[in-house]
C-alpha cells in the first residue's frame, strides 16, 4: 500500500480527529487551549495513558505546561460560536 493510503486509513486517522475534537472542546470550554487537559482527555478516550508520560513530566517540570487553564473572561462570546 502506498504511504499516502496508509496514513489515510485506520486508527491514525481516527486519532487525529479525536485530537482536533479535544482541542475544539477546550476552546469551547475556556476560550483558549488548555494543553495538559487536551492531552489527558485525548489519552483517556484512547485508553492510552502511558505513552508520552515522560515527555509530559519533563514539560511540566520545565514549566511548559500550565495546570490551570487560561480563560477568556467573556467566555459566553466564544461558546455561542459553537452553537449550530
Amino acid at each position, binding site marked *: 500500500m502506498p504511504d499516502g493510503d496508509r496514513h489515510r486509513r485506520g486508527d491514525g486517522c481516527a486519532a*487525529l480527529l479525536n485530537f482536533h475534537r479535544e*482541542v*475544539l472542546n477546550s476552546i469551547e470550554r475556556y476560550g483558549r*487551549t488548555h494543553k495538559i487537559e487536551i492531552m489527558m482527555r485525548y489519552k483517556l478516550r484512547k485508553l492510552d495513558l502511558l505513552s508520552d508520560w515522560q515527555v509530559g513530566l*519533563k514539560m511540566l517540570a*520545565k514549566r511548559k505546561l500550565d*495546570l490551570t487553564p487560561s480563560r477568556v473572561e467573556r467566555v459566553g462570546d466564544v461558546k455561542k460560536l459553537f452553537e449550530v
Partner: protein
Amino acid sequence: MPARPAFAVSYFPGCSLATTAKENNQSLIESCRKMGIEMVELADWNCCGSSSAHSLDHRLAFDLACRNLSLAPQGRPLVAACPSCTLRLKHAQHLLQNDEAARKRYAELWGRPYDPTLSIRHFFSLLAEVDLERLAVENGRQGLELSFAPYYGCMLNRPPALRSGANYYGIMERTLGGLGMRAITWGYASRCCGTFLTVARPDIVTPKVNAILQGAADAGAECIVTACAMCHMNLEVRCTLKNPIPIFHFSELLSLGGALRVLSDGPATGRLVHRPADVGEASGAFGVFLRAAAGAEPLFGHDALKDARAAVALEILRDRLAGVTETVADQLSHG
C-alpha cells in the same frame, strides 16, 4: 527605559506563547520594549482556532479569528508572533475584505462593522522599522560569534488566498547577521516539523524532527533558531538524536545579540529539554545564556541518562518530582 519614543501595538500572544513558550513571549516583549515598541496585550483575546478549527470547521475558524479582530482598538496595528495565529487572523481579514456575507456575519456577531483600516502584522515586519545595529551598539553589544541554522517552518508560507502578502524568509538571517551571527545555508529551513501530528502520530513527527536537527548539525550550525513556537516545541520534545544542537527562539537570540538583556533568569532558566553536549565550551554571552538555559546540572540530558546507574536514575527521578511539585505548588498559589 526605551531610548526613543515608544509606539504602541496591540499584541496577540496566542495559546502557545502564553503557555508552552513563555521564554519566547518574555524575550519578545522585552526586546520590543528596548526597541521602543510597546506591546499592549489584546484584552480578553481568544484562541485563533489553530489547525483544529481550520481542519474541522471553516466557519468556526473564521468566527474565532473575528472575535479577536473585533477586540482590537482602532489606530494600532495588531501584531502576532506565532506564524499560525498570524495566518488565521490574516485569512479572516482576507474574507472580510472580499466577501459581503462575511462582513454581514461579523457585524451581526460583534455588533459593529469590520474595521477596514486594521493592520495585522507579523512581529518580523516590525523589525524593518528599527535600527537594530545602532541599538546593539548603544546597549554595549556583546560578542556573539556563533553560527545558526534559521528555521522558519512552513506556517510562514502563504496559502493561495494570501499569496500577495509579505514574504518573511531571510529576515532572521539579515537581522541576526547584522548583530554579528552567521547564518548557515541548509536545506531544511522551511520543512514541515509535523505540526499537530505530534500528539496523535509521533511516529511521523520524530523522523522529520530528527532530519531537521541532524541537517542543521551537518551543515555546521551551533544552534537552530526558530520562528514558530509550535515548531520549536516539536523540535525539542520529539527529537531522539543522541546529542542534538540547542534550539532557541529567534526572539531569544535577538534579545541576547542586541545585548538588550541576557536572559539568565525567569522562564529561560533550565528550559532546554535536551542539554547540549558541548554546553561547557561555548564562550561569551551565548555561553552564559546557553548554560543558564540548559540548567546547572545535566538532569534531563542524554549524557546523564546514558551514564545513569541505579543511583543516578533515582536522583534524576527525585529531581524531576521536585520540579513537578514546585510547579504544582507555584501554580496552585497563583491559580
